[in-house]
């Protein structure tokens, strides 16, 4: 059942293949000693020659070599073969290779079947040579009977929309967007918060160079804001994703700022004139440590520099009654209290997800005293305290205003721990050393770092560790048993005591400090499951989005056209996030610049004549590839979304659905071959 359109593209060879003339060539590979060491390849080849329809049967040491490939090509031409079977290693490795060889010889690449006699017979039955040979014979026979029923197929090509959607405006999202925009592609950058910048914008200094985070980030943020190829939608979220690779239709929800973005010039007069004279609401950017008014910008270098009004705290929005001094103060008349959320529909070809991470909440670790003692803080909170634009203006002070004379930094909080997150969060050792250095620099405090293993793997990291050691920071190897305020000696009074075994010296120590910093680990965002469902990707066990292959495909996902960048895929430092963002952008570019994508040929199709319109298949499809044509009252399968899983084929009560490369005749041929020991396939 091949469409007439497809028939037209067939070569002479292929047309011959479509006739009932079945002339099969079987090639058995030795694969060095991988196969030949266990299976008698000569006997297997001789057996293959005896099978119905087999014109030629050969064995060769390495079929994937140039000589081997040429052998096959020659045979196809000289013996006028119409089908080819290769019995060698896994299709995952060489199916494409041999399909290409067959195509080069003029035959349709799908008139080919590969049999894995290495993993399925040789390697698993190394000590049972006779049985391995018998099994290999069965497998080859099955392939021969199957391939006889193969038909030529054509891979469809679909166009790729050159626009890209980048979800998340942290450093990874920013880098990906800039790379793509500079390559001339149009990028939609959607960010949930009112400004881009992500976590990096919150940091004070970055390791190991001690660059000011804002100083190196702001130029990139500015470039994003000004780039003609980037449409920046901040304070927005992706609401729905439909479509498939090359042709995604995305709905973006733009949350109401109550300020018309195009008119706001960022003069901040409205904030100044707000009826609240002082800042009194917790500022999200400062993690609640700082205060803001209901009308605010998240931080002084926000991009876009547009004001936001918080509907929870703004009196006008909560009660409807207010002097509206902000409206009065606004020259461009940008404030609009009646603004509603807006849904924008966009079409893109590829999507890069760069939604970042959240930090571990150490309240769970009760014996560290977070939220019980005011002077126990997380690493991220300290970044805000140290930052000159932060709530204390960069002054490192305790809750009561004093400067700390001694600081304890506890590593691995929430990480490397089977009770919370078993993995290592990768960056905490380095950021803890960085904080130790900054503590010494800012307040010349006595600093103690409590670690289990020090991970200083990157460029310049070990040297930084050495520097911190030289500065006199106490590096104590021991997982802290408790942080307590129960004093046992006079100098412990009024301080926080860290009780830990100094495993290097081999004694239990009690160390009084003024400030305890918990180096909290990185986790997937709280809505990771919702987001992954929306984009049809998967999450790994730790909760981060899953890459296609941890070593060889770290930025692709199992959904074509959706890529990952940054910490949403796993904890990493800034250099790695930027590198990964560049990689994701280049993968997207590779797709876009091809202009077209080839779709796999093994998709399912509906025979309209047989379909009764019962809709049984539609809800079963895991890839939502089947829709119902209301006019024709028939099911329609989207060839691009279809992954060829076969569920609908099996479920259709009218047997109206077939699947290319898995037609009934082909499957039955394979089954017959496996069991009947040589009898011809019955119809």
């Amino acid at each position, binding site marked *: 059942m091949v469409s007439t359109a497809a028939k037209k593209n067939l070569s002479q060879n292929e047309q011959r293949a479509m006739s009932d003339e079945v002339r099969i060539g079987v090639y058995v590979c030795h694969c060095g000693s991988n196969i030949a060491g266990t299976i008698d390849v000569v006997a297997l080849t001789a057996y293959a020659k005896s099978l119905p329809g087999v014109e030629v049967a050969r064995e060769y040491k390495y079929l994937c070599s140039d000589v081997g490939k040429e052998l096959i090509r020659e045979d196809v031409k000289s013996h006028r073969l119409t089908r080819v079977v290769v019995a060698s290693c896994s299709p995952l490795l060489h199916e494409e290779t041999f399909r290409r060889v067959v195509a080069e010889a003029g035959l349709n690449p799908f008139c080919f079947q590969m049999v894995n006699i290495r993993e399925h017979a040789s390697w698993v039955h190394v000590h049972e040579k006779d049985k391995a040979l018998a099994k290999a014979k069965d497998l080859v026979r099955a392939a021969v009977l199957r391939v006889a029923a193969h038909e030529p197929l054509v891979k469809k090509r679909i166009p790729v929309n050159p626009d890209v959607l980048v979800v998340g405006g942290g450093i990874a999202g920013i880098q990906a967007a800039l790379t793509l925009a500079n390559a001339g592609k149009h990028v939609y950058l959607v960010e949930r918060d009112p400004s881009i910048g992500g976590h990096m914008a919150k940091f004070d200094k970055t390791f190991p160079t001690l660059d000011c985070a804002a100083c190196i980030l702001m130029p990139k943020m500015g470039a994003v804001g000004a780039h003609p190829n980037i449409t920046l939608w901040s304070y927005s979220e992706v609401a729905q994703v439909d479509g498939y690779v090359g042709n995604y239709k995305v709905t973006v929800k733009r949350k109401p700022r109550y300020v018309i973005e195009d008119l706001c010039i960022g003069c901040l007069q409205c904030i100044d004139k707000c009826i609240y004279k002082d800042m009194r609401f917790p500022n999200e950017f400062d993690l609640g440590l700082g205060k803001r008014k209901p009308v605010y910008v998240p931080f002084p270098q926000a991009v876009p520099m547009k004001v936001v009004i918080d509907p929870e705290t703004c009196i006008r929005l909560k009660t409807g009654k207010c002097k509206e001094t902000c409206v009065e103060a606004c020259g461009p008349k940008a404030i609009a209290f009646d603004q509603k959320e807006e849904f924008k529909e966009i079409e893109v070809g590829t999507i890069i997800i760069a939604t970042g991470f959240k930090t571990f909440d150490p309240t769970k670790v009760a*014996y560290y005293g977070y939220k019980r003692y005011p002077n126990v803080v997380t690493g991220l909170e300290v970044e805000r305290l140290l930052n000159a634009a932060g709530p204390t203006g960069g002054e490192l002070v305790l809750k009561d205003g004093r400067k700390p004379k001694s600081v304890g930094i506890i590593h691995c909080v929430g990480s490397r721990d089977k009770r919370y997150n078993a993995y290592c969060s990768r960056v905490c050792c380095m950021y803890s050393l960085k904080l130790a250095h900054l503590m010494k620099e800012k307040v010349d405090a006595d600093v103690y770092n409590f670690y289990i293993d020090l991970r200083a793997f990157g460029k310049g990291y070990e040297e930084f560790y050495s520097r911190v050691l030289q500065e006199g920071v106490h590096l104590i190897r021991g997982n802290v048993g408790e942080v*307590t305020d*129960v004093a046992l000696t006079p100098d412990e009074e009024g301080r926080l005591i860290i009780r830990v075994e100094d495993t290097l010296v081999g004694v239990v120590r009690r160390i009084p400090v003024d400030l305890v910093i918990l180096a909290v680990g990185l986790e997937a965002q709280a809505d990771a499951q919702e987001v992954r469902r929306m984009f049809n990707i998967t999450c790994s066990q730790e909760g981060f989005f899953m890459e296609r292959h941890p070593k060889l495909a770290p930025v692709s996902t199992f959904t074509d056209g959706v890529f990952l960048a940054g910490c949403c895929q796993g904890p990493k430092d800034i250099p790695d996030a930027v590198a990964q963002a560049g990689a994701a952008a280049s993968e997207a570019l590779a797709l876009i610049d091809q202009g077209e994508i080839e779709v796999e040929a093994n998709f399912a199709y509906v025979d309209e004549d047989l379909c009764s319109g019962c809709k049984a298949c539609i809800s079963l499809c895991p890839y939502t590839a089947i829709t119902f044509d209301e006019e024709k009252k028939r099911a329609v399968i989207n060839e691009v979304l279809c992954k060829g899983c076969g569920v609908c084929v099996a479920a259709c009560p009218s047997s109206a659905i077939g699947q290319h490369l898995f037609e009934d005749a082909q499957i039955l041929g394979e089954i017959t071959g496996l069991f009947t020991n040589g009898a011809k396939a019955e119809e």
Partner: protein
Amino acid sequence: MRIFEELGLKLTELDDWNCCGATLCAGVSKISSFALTARNLALAEKNYAGKDIVAPCSACYLAFIKTKDYMQRYPDVKQKVDTALAAIDLQCQGKARVRHPLEVIVTDVGLEEIEARVKKRLTGFKVAPYYGCQTTRPYAEFDHPFFPDSMDKLLRVLGAEVIDYPLKTKCCGGAITSMVEEVGLRLNYILVHEAHKRGANAISTSCPLCQFNLDVYQKKTIKEYDLDFSIPILYFTQLLGLALGIGAKELGFGRVMVPVKPLLATVE
């Protein structure tokens, strides 16, 4: 028992109970301690079917839960214990529910009900709640392993002031206190000293061994560490009973080693 009666909960002593071996026997032969505990479980299932077991002794409480857990998780433990019980015609199916008196009071009776029955509010009592370790770790069945608050809530409802006591589950030394006295006294000191420092005039315990250690050894602790105070150590049902209007003698205040009369006097 008087308290439970008062609150309308029926308690029956398990007939012919045997010692579970507590923490000491587990250090000699773990499987024996499982078997000994299982005998109690089996007797309860056989003679008091359907009833919950209430274990005021914290070591027994933990031993019960541990035995049930190990018999479920480790087949060879189950097999050995089953064989041992079969030798005396008993069977342990792990069906009996094991509960702590504190949990029973707070859950089955409820704080509101108790508040309604309070006849004499414990005003003037500044209590440090001390839970000990066996009932909160490692199986945190009914409260937090380091900072539980069921007893705190109960005491507040009785009208007492509950002080913020971070050592509420810090080990008192358990069996070690009587055997290795220097260590026991030191742990004792840390607990009572901190309670006193934070303004407590009584410590309420939910473990009889903690009560014993902190109470009976307090005289020695005071001498060893030159302390100028003493602090009565009470079992929580004693305080509960007091609030319910039951007499001091009936509540066993006379059996507490550290004199309780001064406390009761300041409060009257």
